[in-house]
């Protein structure tokens, strides 16, 4: 682990480089020589005990320096890696010219949630995985920091009060229902509203934003940002109905017939959490990551002074899983006052599906990783409260269908870890509600809605996308599906 650098130190480094670049005509060789600008962040020892955002965002100088690393490849391979096709070299070119407004407007032609994507997209697996600079330096982590630049201009626009929202086309009189206000739903709402159709977004929770509000913690994605994006949609004329559970408050069929909606998009997101079905899983103190995070994020239980929803007090917390949600759970546990937080994962760091940056942050903050271990049972006291977990040690064997080496248990290696809370972050099954209450809606055997290449479901006038189709995925993949669905829906509505 390298030493933590403050924003001031990083700014000073950037300023030195900038002094050598400013006003110069740069060759590609000059650009290759510019080091990637590090993201300023709160000091690990401090941030592990507060809910404020960890990553602080580039300074203006850092953004200018980082943008100069882009060589503007004519083939723009980075674009291919973006599920919503952000014109990446084009927006970076604007930053190179010092035109931040031009940069953000360019991003917004295809992505209305850049402040969010700049924070939570796994860029190293998407745009930055295709970046020529990264390829040359043999690591997508060393690519042009596209995500950080995207965040910089989005934050710049908000901080300087320069937000402009697209003006929708003249009203068409057609009505669309969007079910769920997560990333897929918000993308669909924006794209359809732009075409002049009326859009109502139905949200089961009291707040809009879906997983961005209940799942992703404040320290990674401030809730005020999500609220701002929703406010921008409202300014475009999108209507939001919270505490409305489609399937129960009204069925999809009622919306499409009695309530006169011409089309609908289902973006209901993640469903019921997966459990391991091992002994002791229903002990007090065993939580799904969904519950643990929802209590803390949506219900604000971390704010003990104001929130009515309680958080379970635990000193030794173990999180099970290796994805982003596991990292969120572990880091939340630290911030809630746990003295010891373990992350138990049955493979190794190299196989973890979480974003590299999140894993690094968790390490820096003091999460204790137990790789190549898996639980066999939870142990409770006489009151049914969790006191420990029995783990079994694994080793990596031959690669499996996913190409990752398969973890194999080593018999006789059972050992007990003393814990008083467990957070299970092994993904979700699908939410059964829409399928249960909508006749003719085809789903897979896992309950995910089946769609065609245009996100159309088995029911006329109904499209679907995001986690309810994909299973557990990412914000940007959900947005990509929303984008595709909206295009198809707009085409359908235009021809109607």
């Amino acid at each position, binding site marked *: 682990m390298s030493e933590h650098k403050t924003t001031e130190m990083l700014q000073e480094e950037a300023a030195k480089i900038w002094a050598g670049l400013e006003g110069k005509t740069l060759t590609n060789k000059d650009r290759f020589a510019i080091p990637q600008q590090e993201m300023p962040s709160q000091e690990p020892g401090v941030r592990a005990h507060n809910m404020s955002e960890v990553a602080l965002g580039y300074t203006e100088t850092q953004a200018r320096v980082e943008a100069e690393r882009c060589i503007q490849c004519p083939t723009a391979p980075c674009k291919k890696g973006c599920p919503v096709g952000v014109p990446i070299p084009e927006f970076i070119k604007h930053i190179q010219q010092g035109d931040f407004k031009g940069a953000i407007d360019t991003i917004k032609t295809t992505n209305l949630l850049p402040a969010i994507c700049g924070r939570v997209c796994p860029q190293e697996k998407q745009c930055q995985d295709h970046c020529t600079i990264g390829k040359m330096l043999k690591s997508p982590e060393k690519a042009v920091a596209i995500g950080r630049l995207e965040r910089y201009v989005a934050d710049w626009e908000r901080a300087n009060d320069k937000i402009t929202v697209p003006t929708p086309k003249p009203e068409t009189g057609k009505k669309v229902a969007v079910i769920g206000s997560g990333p897929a739903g918000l993308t669909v709402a924006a794209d359809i509203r732009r075409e002049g159709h009326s859009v109502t977004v139905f949200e089961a929770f009291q707040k809009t934003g879906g997983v961005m509000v209940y799942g992703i913690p404040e320290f990674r994605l401030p809730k005020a940002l999500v609220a701002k994006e929703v406010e921008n949609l409202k300014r475009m004329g999108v209507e939001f109905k919270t*505490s409305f559970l489609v399937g129960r408050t009204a069925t999809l069929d*009622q919306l499409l017939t009695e309530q006169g909606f011409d089309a609908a998009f289902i973006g209901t997101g993640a469903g*019921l959490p997966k459990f391991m079905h091992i002994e002791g899983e*229903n002990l007090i103190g065993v939580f799904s990551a969904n519950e643990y995070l929802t209590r803390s994020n949506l219900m604000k239980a971390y704010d003990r002074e104001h929130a009515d929803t309680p958080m*379970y007090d635990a000193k030794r917390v173990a999180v099970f899983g290796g994805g982003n949600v596991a990292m969120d759970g572990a880091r939340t546990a630290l911030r809630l006052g746990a003295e010891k937080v373990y992350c138990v994962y049955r493979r190794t760091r190299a196989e973890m599906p979480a974003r590299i940056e999140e894993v690094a942050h968790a390490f820096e903050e003091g999460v204790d990783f137990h790789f190549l271990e898996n639980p066999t049972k939870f142990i409770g006291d006489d009151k049914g409260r969790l006191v420990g977990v029995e783990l079994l040690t694994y080793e990596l064997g031959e690669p499996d269908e996913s190409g990752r080496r398969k973890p194999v248990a080593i018999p006789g290696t059972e050992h007990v870890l003393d814990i008083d809370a467990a957070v299970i972050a092994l993904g979700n099954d699908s939410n059964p509600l829409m399928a249960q209450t909508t006749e003719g809606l085809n789903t897979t055997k896992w309950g995910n809605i089946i769609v065609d290449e245009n996100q159309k479901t088995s029911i006329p006038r109904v499209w679907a996308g995001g986690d309810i189709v994909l299973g557990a995925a990412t914000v940007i993949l959900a947005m990509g599906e929303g984008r595709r669905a909206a295009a198809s829906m707009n085409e359908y509505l235009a021809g109607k």
Partner: protein
Amino acid sequence: MHKILEKRQLSYDKERDQSVYYFKVEAPEIARNRKAGQFIIFQLDEDYGERIPLTIADANAEEGWIAIVFQTVGATTRRFSETFNVGDNVPVLVGPLGKPTHIEKKDGIVLCVGGGIGIAPLHPIVEANHKIGNKVVTIIGARTKDLLFFEDEMRAASDELIVVTDDGSYGRKAVVTAPLTEICEKEKVSEIVSIGPAIMMKFCVAAAKPFGVPITTSLNTIMIDGTGMCGCCRVSVGGKTKFVCVDGPEFNGYEVDFDNMMQRMTAFKDKEKEADHKCRIGLDAGKKAGA
């Protein structure tokens, strides 16, 4: 908006300083689609309020309201009863949630058993059975006379009503399982529906077992979202993990692991006590004044 149309105190438990309240609330969409056995979730504050599930006790689709009945057992329910009055709006209300009760024509008696606060959610089930022509025998019970409510409503919707109290201060001195057993011995009972404290439902299941009569129980676990996302409400049913919010709230009583459910319901007991204590001595009165 969910305006409170009527507010009544149904009972007061001196021993525990707890009341049961009836609130009639404007909720046209919920009233229209709700069926017997379903519940709602309410919050007193959008930002900081906790989500409390309550079974719908009554509803009128034409007039666009639902009724909820709750006991002031914690800080939120206490504050709801003390600071919300007719004309105020309930800030957050979502529903109807959960699967409706399966109501069908039966040959024999449908025996409905409600204990304490469980009498409220039992009411729509009694009504629905009565409406389709089932012979409904209802048993309602409480610790003492002051804690009983809905006697008239239940009588109106039942072919026979039996009232019991633990202390004999009203009706017959007995626990609900006594008349349950007697009826099962004498008559043909097709189904038992039991709603009340977990321990009561557990004993009803034990009492029904020798007769092999199917028994449905309605579970009131802790919930957060209540829509099939968080998994907080999970219970073990027939050895499998089930979710009360989307798989329930009603389950075959023979399959429910009541002991585990009762344990899980104590998860936050110390916190609840602390919050209730603060609420009673007015520590958080200022904070929620605007709610």
